[in-house]
């Protein structure tokens, strides 16, 4: 009597079917979006006017809010990455090297945001942002504080997997025994060996920030996603074009992360 083993690897045919189905699920909306951007109104005709219009001087005023949103999102991406690199990364290194017993606590804290829906997060953040507005003003970049929390789980995992793969404790001790101070240990030894994790955390943070809508919308800030929504109400073609471009950018970032993970060891001489 033959039976199907539980946990057995699916056959090549089944794998292809699953892969095909997933590809269709992802491809259909993307292809639809691309096709949509070439549609000429409600007729059957095709046009490149919607794409060409982006570069028209006349449209600069029309899409001003969208460009503001893009600019804000870029600033937010940089600010969020800065928070990750300045706060999260050093904290994780210190915990790994000096307080290994706190690793579980840090992991728990960093994973929490992924369990809290953005809408719930905003409810808690609203009064906090009242204070932030009084201290730092209501500039859009202040959203980076909230985004710093939102990207924590992703940034943590990317950096921690790299930390686990490198014996930072021994490398740190070896470099200190050779006369390096803590800054030199970090700069010449640890950061080059954590390069992959740092870049992965940064790219994932950028991807998350570029796709964030809920927090910005509910806190009345303009970013790429809120601007896209606004533009879509007057010009759905341009909104879809920018959504596609944002998708392509994020796809490129994730591709870069994948390449980093499989890249051969490269030299980084102090």
């Amino acid at each position: 009597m033959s039976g199907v083993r539980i946990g057995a690897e699916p056959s090549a045919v089944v794998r292809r079917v699953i892969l095909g189905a997933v590809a269709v699920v992802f491809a259909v909306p993307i292809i639809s979006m691309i096709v949509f951007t070439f549609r000429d109104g409600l007729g059957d005709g095709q046009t490149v006017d919607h794409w060409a219009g982006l570069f028209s001087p006349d449209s600069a005023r029309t899409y001003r809010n969208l460009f503001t949103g893009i600019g804000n999102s870029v600033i937010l991406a940089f600010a969020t990455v800065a928070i990750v690199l300045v706060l999260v990364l050093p904290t994780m290194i210190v915990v790994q090297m000096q307080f290994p017993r706190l690793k579980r606590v840090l992991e728990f804290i960093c994973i929490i945001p992924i369990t809290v829906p953005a809408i719930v997060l905003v409810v808690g953040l609203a009064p906090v942002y009242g204070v932030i507005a009084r201290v730092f003003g209501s500039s859009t970049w202040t959203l980076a504080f909230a985004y710093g929390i939102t990207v924590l789980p992703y940034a943590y995992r990317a950096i921690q997997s790299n930390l686990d793969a490198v014996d930072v404790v021994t490398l740190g001790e070896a470099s200190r025994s050779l006369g390096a101070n803590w800054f030199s240990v970090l700069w010449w030894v640890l950061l080059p060996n954590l390069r992959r994790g740092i870049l992965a955390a940064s790219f994932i943070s950028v991807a998350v920030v570029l796709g964030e809508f809920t927090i910005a919308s509910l806190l009345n800030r303009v970013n790429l996603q809120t601007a896209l929504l606004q533009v879509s109400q007057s010009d759905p073609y341009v909104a879809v074009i920018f959504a596609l471009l944002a998708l392509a950018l994020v796809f490129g970032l994730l591709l870069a992360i994948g390449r980093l993970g499989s890249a051969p060891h490269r030299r980084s001489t102090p």
Partner: protein
Amino acid sequence: MTRTPPVTGDSTVPATHDTPGNKSRPGAAVELINVVKDYSGHRALNGINLTIAPGEFIALLGPSGCGKTTALRALSGLETIDAGNIRIDDTDVASVPVNRRDIGMVFQSYSLFPHMTALENVEFGLRMRRVPAAERRSRALDALAMVGLAEKGHRFAHQLSGGQQQRVALARALVTRPRVLLLDEPLSALDATVRVQLREEIRRIQTDLGITTLFVTHDQEEALAVADRVAVMRDGQIEQIGSPEELYMTPATPFVADFVGVSTQVSATIVDGQVMVQGVALPLLGDPQPDGPVTAFIRPEDVRFITADATRPALSAHVVSSSFLGSQRRTQVRFEDGTLMSVQHEVGVHPGVGERVLLAFAGRPVSAKPRS
């Protein structure tokens, strides 16, 4: 026995460098005085005292958890101490951070920086001391040549074998001409052949440079083979320190007798200050003990096969097993009362399993501890 560090003129030795306070370096005197280290209730170092003469090679030997690595790390500055003093050349360095202690260290795990070549690894310590680039490169190449890896400088750690990585780590630790060299079980991750080669190389280089060296190991053969003196540690204290010969021939305590060398533990009795083993009286090593049952530690080389001879007493036993050890053979025998004992003898003698043999003790003093 202390080997006097020679003044070297060897061209393969990195030139003495010019970091402040280190104009000449035949090796520093090191003292650990009543050093105490606690880990959340557990006392890892319990008032340890150790004096190392300039240029001396000391091995810290002991079982896992005895505090030997903690002692080494305390000396390096990687661990702070809770009490006591650590002196290097009469200067108390207990509060000096590790990067200012001017020590060289080789770790158990391969600790080469993976993103640098072997040459860049060796240059690292000099770079931290702001040695000019040309001198740095020259000295790093000399150091690599010293460990026999002059041709491998361009390779990364993952392109080197374990033994080669540890050689690079040794060159990296020595290139700055530190006052003290600390070796934290540097051979334990290597295979047997490479271990022997590298330990001999370490000893040769240490003798050439005359650098004061502290070597931590749990391998007694390694410790006895390379060190001027061996300190046997137990429960955060030094149980005995002495030359390898002293430790082996005259262990101060049953623990040392048991830990250093190979011993067979057999039931015995103290009678009038002598140890009675299988009815034979043997001199007791160490302090006198009251009469009563003890466990005696008999070295395999202190027992030998004899042929039947009416003029001298012989013990009778049966062969249980026999192991070929290369230059010698070790045979386990069982006495009539079931006591097992090992006998070390020439390879040419090969008694068969179950064969009846006659034995005699060499008559050397044996260690014994009261039997509970």
